[in-house]
């Protein structure tokens, strides 16, 4: 399989640019890169979920275009998603054949299916009882079912999106064993990950993606985890450098022993304690899915912690509602702006009200102040350079960068004392990024306390006054952003070891 010059643009963003990858038959080809580097977009293109704007895909020397995943499946490409797509209340057999049922007359030919699944299982070391209910299976077994599903459909090229994220070490070893079997049978595997140790252990070739493009293709035999991390995060100097420290010694937000346990007993936040002072930016580095989102949600009050306390300016707000916290001055820049930050089919000025419904200039008593909100939206559009012809258009009509500027402008407008900023510049163009950084710095100088979560290590190091690394819900290391480099941080994030400063 060969990819040449794949480019994919979204409004205001280029997600992929000039991607070149060659996957040889019978190899495990790893693709590594930071969150947001464009791996997922690339996978969607490979699997026909999105079409590239430029570039070509060749399979076995033939140029192909995929209009949808069915085309990709017909070409022998199979995808194992990070989040399993299985029906819990069906058996393994039923899940595997779903949508590709062998029939005898009108009936499902279970015997044929069962035989075929057994064969596949034995051939590749993916043994699963075809008649077990999926809900009774462990995570590792479920993943084998997912792999069987694509093999059953005749896939010769398997795409595995972060397959080890949900596995325990023993299951990882089993998976790798299965991958080696598949490889020896002549199948090709595209393995997406950011766990460098694992990648080095299983891959035959590694391609590194950074900022939407392929930066290197290396042989794992003569590469170290450190070198890979360097390639992943780049070694340019951090550009968003804060000038001088504005950190005061007044704690604004204090979190004590915060714990959040999900049903099933797993702690997604495990004894997290931190303090953010007025005028301080605390950066949280971590691989996505290690508790960052849960930390923000717990601080915002949309999730209730199972233990611990949250103090805002010395006052215990652990039991406060989200609205009360918002009124008390907690601003929020969500990670997924279209889901948590905007009403897409509402006008810009109505979006100005969102999250600040009870505050001036948006309302007077129980009534919405339409002209107040409109005027203030005009101001935000002006001051934050939101590119829009009017404040009456739907939020969905703006590009991602302009939506983000609107959100940042909105959250800054009500003089917050604490800002929870998740990926504040994700998916925005360079100009907007610089503007948002500038606004964050200015607010910090006015005494704002910021909790910053970002996948962009340059941004984290450049903006933060102090850095913490989160791994599996725990804060595992602290760094001084003045002294740390992206490589050290990257290693600590992936659990590859890293010295706390």
């Amino acid at each position, binding site marked *: 399989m060969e990819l040449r010059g794949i480019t994919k643009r*979204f*409004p*205001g*963003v*280029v*997600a992929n640019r000039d991607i070149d990858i060659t996957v040889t038959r019978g190899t495990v080809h790893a693709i590594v890169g930071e*969150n*947001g*580097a*464009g*791996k*997922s*977009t690339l996978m969607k293109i490979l699997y026909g979920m999105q079409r590239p704007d430029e570039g070509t895909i060749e399979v076995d020397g033939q140029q192909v275009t995929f209009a949808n995943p069915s085309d990709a499946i017909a070409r022998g490409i199979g995808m194992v998603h990070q989040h399993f797509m299985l029906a819990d209340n069906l058996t393994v057999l039923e899940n595997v054949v779903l949508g590709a049922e062998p029939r005898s007359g009108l009936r499902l030919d279970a015997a044929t299916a069962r035989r075929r699944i057994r064969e596949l299982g034995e051939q590749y070391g993916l043994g699963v009882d075809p008649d077990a209910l999926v809900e009774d299976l462990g995570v590792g077994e479920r993943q084998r079912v997912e792999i069987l599903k694509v093999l059953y459909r005749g896939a010769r090229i398997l795409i595995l999106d972060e397959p080890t994220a949900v596995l325990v070490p023993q299951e990882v070893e089993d998976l790798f064993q299965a991958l080696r079997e598949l490889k020896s049978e002549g199948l090709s595997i595209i393995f997406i990950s950011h766990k460098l140790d694992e990648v080095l252990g299983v891959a035959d070739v590694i391609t590194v993606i950074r*900022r*939407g*493009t392929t930066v290197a293709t290396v042989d794992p035999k003569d590469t170290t985890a450190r070198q890979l991390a360097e390639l992943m995060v780049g070694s340019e100097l951090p550009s968003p450098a804060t000038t001088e420290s504005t950190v005061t010694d007044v704690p604004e937000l204090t979190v004590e022993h915060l714990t959040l346990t999900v049903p099933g007993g797993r702690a997604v936040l495990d004894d997290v304690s931190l303090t953010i002072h007025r005028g301080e930016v605390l950066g949280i580095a971590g691989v*996505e899915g290690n508790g960052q989102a849960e930390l923000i949600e717990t601080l*915002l009050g949309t999730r209730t912690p199972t233990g611990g306390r949250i103090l805002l300016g010395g006052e215990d707000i652990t039991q406060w*509602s*989200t*609205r009360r916290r918002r009124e008390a001055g907690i601003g929020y820049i*969500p990670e997924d702006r279209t*889901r948590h*930050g*905007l*009403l*897409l*089919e*509402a006008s810009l000025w*109505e979006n100005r*009200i*969102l*999250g*600040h*419904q*009870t505050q001036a200039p948006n*309302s007077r008593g*129980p*009534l*919405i102040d339409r002209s107040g909100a409109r005027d203030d939206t005009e101001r935000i559009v002006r001051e934050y350079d939101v*590119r*829009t*012809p009017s404040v009456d*258009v*739907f939020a*969905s*009509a*703006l590009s991602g*960068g302009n939506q983000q500027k609107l959100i940042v402008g909105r959250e800054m407008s009500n003089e917050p004392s604490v800002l929870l900023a998740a*990926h504040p*510049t*994700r*998916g925005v*163009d*360079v*100009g*907007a*990024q610089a503007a948002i950084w500038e606004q964050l710095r200015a607010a910090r100088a006015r005494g704002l306390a910021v909790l910053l979560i970002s*996948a*962009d290590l340059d941004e984290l190091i450049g903006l933060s006054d102090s850095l913490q690394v989160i791994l599996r819900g725990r804060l595992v290391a602290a760094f001084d952003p003045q002294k740390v480099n992206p490589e050290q941080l990257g290693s600590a994030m992936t659990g590859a070891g890293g010295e706390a400063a």
Partner: protein
Amino acid sequence: MRLLRRIGLVLAAPVLAIVFSVAVTSLVLLAIKASPLDTFSTMLNYAAQPRTQVLIINSAVTYYFAAVAVAVGFRMNLFNIGVDGQYRLAAMLAASVGGAVALPAPLHVVLILVTAMLVGGLWAAVAAVLKVRRGVSEVISTIMLNFIATGIIAYLLAPGRLAVTTQGSNNLGTKPIPPSGQVPGISLIPGTQAQVYGLIVLAILVGVAYWFVLGRTRFGFDLRATGMSEAAAVASGVDVRRMVLSAMVISGAVAGLVGMPQLLGASYTYSLDFPAGLGFTGIGIALLGRNDPVGIAVGCLLWGFLDNSAQILNLENIPVEIVQITQGIIVLSVVVAYELVRRYRVVAEQRDVARALAATPKDEPALAGGAGS
């Protein structure tokens, strides 16, 4: 230009739906060997008579409460199918209360109306509590509550309980409401003795209140925000469980009024032949009127026209049921048409904004590759 297009977009869907359904109805009429042109002109002529116009308006007043009740839920993505049970139970209990007490005129009417709203609201609250506490879909629970309401009404509407027998009839009804609890009609249309329900005033007030609360208050904003994106509403500080409860209770309270024009303006008693099924009419009209207070009013008049003017078709040997085909197709096609128009509007706005901005210099496109990760 922009304004013109917006008005065009608002009207496009319902007009298309009506044209389409008239076309289909014509085909059906042709199939049963009737002339579509004659049929429609007969209906229109009949509707032009003052007496029919009063009937149309009276139907519309009743429908309006039902449609607004449904629309309150719709604005929050709540599907209150239980309007039917809510208004019947409310009407029966309010009729019983109204027949049992003697009060000065305005107070008596107010007592009956308040009772009806309370009963409707409480009955809807059952579904809301089930949803908030136990996660039961309101679609299922309100349907089930309709049946339970029917059972309760059948139980209570018996001699010795809340019903009295009328002499010379085997109909059963609640004790008639004395004149102090009745609402006199209004002679709105000249040329006929028939009067328009006095509660048309209440219908208009409810419409204005609906518009004001949803569009102008914080509560209404929270409600609409929850309907547009629950995730965003939660992050903005909306307590969704409380919103579900309030929206459902308001919906039920408005539903409680559905039977009132009939009860206080015509029958003065809740009897076995009290109109049923109006809640479902309300769902169709709310969809047609797109949850807009004026749109719903237009939809109610259209429904009133179809229902009443169709009666004349009996004399022409054309089945009256033909209008049900028309109504069904209107609702089906309007749902499709609204979705098409909505998508068109989103795309058109994106295009407009892009065009408006093309004139201004653009930033260097950057490689921040967050999309999709």
